[in-house]
């Protein structure tokens, strides 16, 4: 055996709280945030080359499972993170919006790559100039296509969002306004 055997740490750090003999006290927000952030189910919406990079991200080399995202949900109703990987044409826009609408709260969106973020090189009559024209986006991953490390970084950003998000955020009038500004609901 070599000396540098990897040490596998299966324990996520506990949220801030009070610890004593036989008890641990924290607030529910932190606990649920931690649980959510470590079991985000992604819904891959892969349309082009970014989808290939996403497949590499899923594979054993990069292994999205390390971040709690190994369970791909191909039904939007059970998914937490919508990962839009690739060019979205204007004809596909309403379909993407419908998929987003079918996801249950809480939900997050990652725009993977230049095309999903801004239309990329396709400055064209047929291509949607960024998916934030039809649905709200939480994290933008730049790159054409981005490397798997970048996609993982984007996923970790969503983890950070999920961990720190207030449980009441989705009930706030600001959030409703945000959705209404996209004509959702």
């Amino acid at each position: 055996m070599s000396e540098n055997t990897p040490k596998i740490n299966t324990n996520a750090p506990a949220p801030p709280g009070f610890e004593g003999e036989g008890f641990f006290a924290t607030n529910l927000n932190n606990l649920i945030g931690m649980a959510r952030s470590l079991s985000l189910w992604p819904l891959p919406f892969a349309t082009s080359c970014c989808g290939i990079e996403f497949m590499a991200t899923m594979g054993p080399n990069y292994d999205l499972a390390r971040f709690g995202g190994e369970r791909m949900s191909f039904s939007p109703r059970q998914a937490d993170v919508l990962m839009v990987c690739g060019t979205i044409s204007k004809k596909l826009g309403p379909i993407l919006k419908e998929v987003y609408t079918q996801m249950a709260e809480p939900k997050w969106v990652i725009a993977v790559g230049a095309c999903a973020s801004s239309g990329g090189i396709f400055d064209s009559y047929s291509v949607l100039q960024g998916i934030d024209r039809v649905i709200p986006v939480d994290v933008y991953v730049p790159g054409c296509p981005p490397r798997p490390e970048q996609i993982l970084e984007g996923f970790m950003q969503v983890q950070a969002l999920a961990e720190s998000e207030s449980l009441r955020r989705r009930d706030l009038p600001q959030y409703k306004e945000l959705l209404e500004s996209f004509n959702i609901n």
Partner: protein
Amino acid sequence: MEFTNNFILEAITREFPETVISSSEPYGMLTLEIKKQDLKKVVHHMKDSSLGFNFLTDICGIHHPETPEKELGVIYHLHNLVENLRVRLKVFMPFENAEVDSLVELFAGANWMERETFDFYGIKFKGHPDLRVILNDPGLGYHPMLKQYPLEDGTRTDKDDVMFGR
């Protein structure tokens, strides 16, 4: 008689003396410009006679704004699979009420190709069973390959034209 470009050209001019406007052979492929109203007759003849052009490879449109009488065109690629010989047919028409006979009755594969040509150039195909937009968003409302429309997306706000030299 050997099955060559000249043989085909002669056979077509013998059958339709008035139809062929011009002919050329770019890269060895026989290319005929024919009268628009004779298109269906010519293709029918080429398919069902001994010429045997039994495969329609492609239909596409073209837009030449600089030639008003021949502004819009439709180009047909036919293939004789037995002799492995290809022929290109071109028809041109003015922009207003551009319409040409549909070939769906002769080649079922013409259906979607004609819909595509209609989608991008607005050329109507007389006798087409279901002439709808096929590739673009149905709500697009215009025919984007016509030269009067810019290629770039007009709704884009994040690009400063000065920086891109436009």
